[in-house]
């Protein structure tokens, strides 16, 4: 019988998906505080998985010319320039004859670009204002001069600066909406607890694309199928590390049993807090969150949406029983309406 938490709440997904004696759940912990933005993960992934090119356009989003996770980019390194202090370093431009920070304004320009990623929906343009706010950080009020001296985009000149980099990837949710809504069983849960598209099955119905609360999965043009990170299912089967984690020079991407990674992540947050980085926080690690915790979770230095992550995602199928209930009532209603239509006029 399905688990009581089959749709929502803490769950070990592999046994729920019918694997007896499943190996421990495997996943990623991406520690963005040590990411150097080298994009080795993006390339290593493409090399191993034969992922096609995703466009040759310069996006003006700092050093990010990939733009987003798409069917043709299964790892995506985000770059965010902010006139904010970074906890571990002294102010970068203190004492220099600077004017106000420009990063919000340039981010606004970067929001308008787009690229042909060869996928659908790929990388549509964004909102310049939201981009500006991302770059200035959550303190941003959109009003130059209203901020404390030396902070944000205050006209007094910039002293602090930080450059956030983060490698995003499919979250391999405990409750994976993409998987649950897939009508062909192409998306399935592996014995490692990961979520994989089976390319011999997918018929490109596109349902998973709308279902994903993180905007990860995407459809490849021409090919028609949906593609995303497989957490290198083939490599896992051979006892190997996924290509991105193996390549990552600074261990920003760590691979291992999710349980162990969660402990490691908690310890790392503590260290960063001790070292004066209070904004360090984990994202997607909590089995009690809206998706039952992510198999790939993150240590972030700013709000999730700054990195393009939803602040509080909930798996849509949490509400599925209620949806069916409403559909049932509606079905009854139209049946009644039909009966009324044909019998209502009879004396």
């Amino acid at each position, binding site marked *: 019988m399905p688990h009581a938490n089959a749709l929502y709440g803490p769950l070990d997904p592999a046994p729920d998906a019918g694997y007896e004696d499943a190996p421990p759940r495997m996943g990623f912990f991406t520690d963005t505080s040590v990411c150097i933005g080298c994009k080795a993960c993006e390339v290593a992934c493409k090399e191993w998985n034969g992922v096609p090119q995703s466009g040759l356009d310069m996006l003006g989003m700092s050093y990010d010319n990939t733009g987003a996770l798409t069917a043709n980019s299964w790892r995506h390194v985000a770059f965010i320039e902010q006139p904010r202090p970074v906890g571990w370093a002294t102010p970068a431009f203190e004492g220099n*004859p600077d004017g106000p920070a420009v990063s919000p304004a340039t981010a606004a320009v970067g929001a308008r670009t787009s690229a042909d990623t060869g996928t659908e929906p790929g990388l549509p343009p964004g909102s310049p204002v939201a981009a500006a706010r991302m770059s200035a950080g*959550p303190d941003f009020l959109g009003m130059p001069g209203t901020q404390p001296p030396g902070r944000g985009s205050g006209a007094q000149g910039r002293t602090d600066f930080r450059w956030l980099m983060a490698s995003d990837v499919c979250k391999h949710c405990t409750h994976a909406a993409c998987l649950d809504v*897939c009508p062909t069983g192409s998306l399935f849960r592996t014995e490692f607890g990961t979520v994989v598209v089976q390319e011999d099955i997918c018929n490109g119905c596109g349902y998973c694309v*709308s279902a994903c609360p993180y905007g990860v999965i*995407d459809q490849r043009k021409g090919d028609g*199928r949906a593609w995303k990170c497989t957490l290198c299912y083939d490599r896992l089967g051979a006892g190997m590390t996924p290509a991105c984690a193996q390549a990552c020079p600074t261990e920003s991407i760590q691979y291992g049993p999710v349980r162990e990674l969660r402990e490691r992540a908690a310890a790392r947050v503590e260290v960063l807090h001790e070292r004066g980085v209070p904004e360090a926080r984990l994202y997607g690690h909590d089995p009690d969150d809206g998706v039952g915790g992510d198999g790939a979770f993150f240590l972030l230095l700013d*709000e999730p949406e700054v990195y393009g992550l939803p602040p509080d995602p909930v798996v849509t199928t949490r509400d599925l029983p209620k949806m069916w209930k409403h559909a049932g009532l509606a079905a009854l209603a139209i049946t009644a309406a039909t009966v009324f239509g044909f019998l209502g006029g009879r004396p």
Partner: protein
Amino acid sequence: MTDSPSNEPVGARFRDFQAQLDQPDGRRHRKRGRGRGDGGEQLTVPPADFTSYYGRPILKAPVWKHDIAGYLFTGGLAAGGAMIGAGAQLTGRPRLRQVGRWTALGGIAASAYLLVHDLGRPDRFHHMLRVVKLTSPMSMGTWILTAFGPAAGVAAIAEIAPRLPEHGVFGLARRLAPTVGDVAGLAAAATAPALATYTGVLLADTAVPAWHDAYPFLPFVFGGSGLAAAAGVGLIAAPAADTAPLRRLTVAAATIKFVGGHRMGRSSLTGEPYRRGRSGRLVRAGNVLLGVGTVGALLSRRSRVLAVLSGAALVASSVATRFGIFDAGTVSARDPKYTVVPQRERRDSRQGRSPAEKGT
């Protein structure tokens, strides 16, 4: 050579930037609660000061083409047709039965075409039959269609039996057809309510904010709309003598849609696309057409022309409603506001923080 950056250019730069912030897409300075669709009531939409990575969408917008919006219409129409066909069959209105059954077959054939056409890999449409997934409205829909389609098809084809030759194999078919058609017609009608309403779940069971948050309403809107559209086809195609049930049906269907869906998109931020922009206009057009069509239908007892016009309005209402809702979903997925703002509110209220404190 170069001096300290003077204040003027910096000021100019920031004036430009400020001007950019005030562009429509910011909406921060807009007066809220405008527009006809809002009915003038004071909305509780929070200010949309949110962040996202270069303002890009957080969600992937639906990749479904308008095929699917069309299917939402044709599927509902087919379901309504089958139900009208069965009602006519049981109440002895053969011509209305015929119209109902043909509507069902036409609707379901178009649906099948649209669904397969929308696939990235149409040659793999049969992979839909690999699994039965209770968690996937599309899988459930597939099985509903699998039950409904053949039944509706048989029922409709049975209607051509009188034109078959009287002897031989065809003769046998001609004799068996009415019975088979009746059984099939009832079978189609039995699955039709599910077909008419599951599409509401199909859209709602996504991360698309406007769709998901409308899950209590969508099945009613879709069910009512489908039934009204089928009634509209009946008003157009069925003889005047048979349209009395259709008028009652229209009123009932419109009631379901308006009552079941009246709160859809009303007060929430994620309902905004149902009120604003092109999608909002379509949704409103659907409502207006439904109202007009229903009133027209009620008054059309003696006017064939008015019956036809009313029927057309009902059909058009259904088309507009489906496309409007479909587009509203796409709009809500494309704008990160609809993703970030409600989620932050949810998170902050859970953590006992007021929105003003967020970001600390």
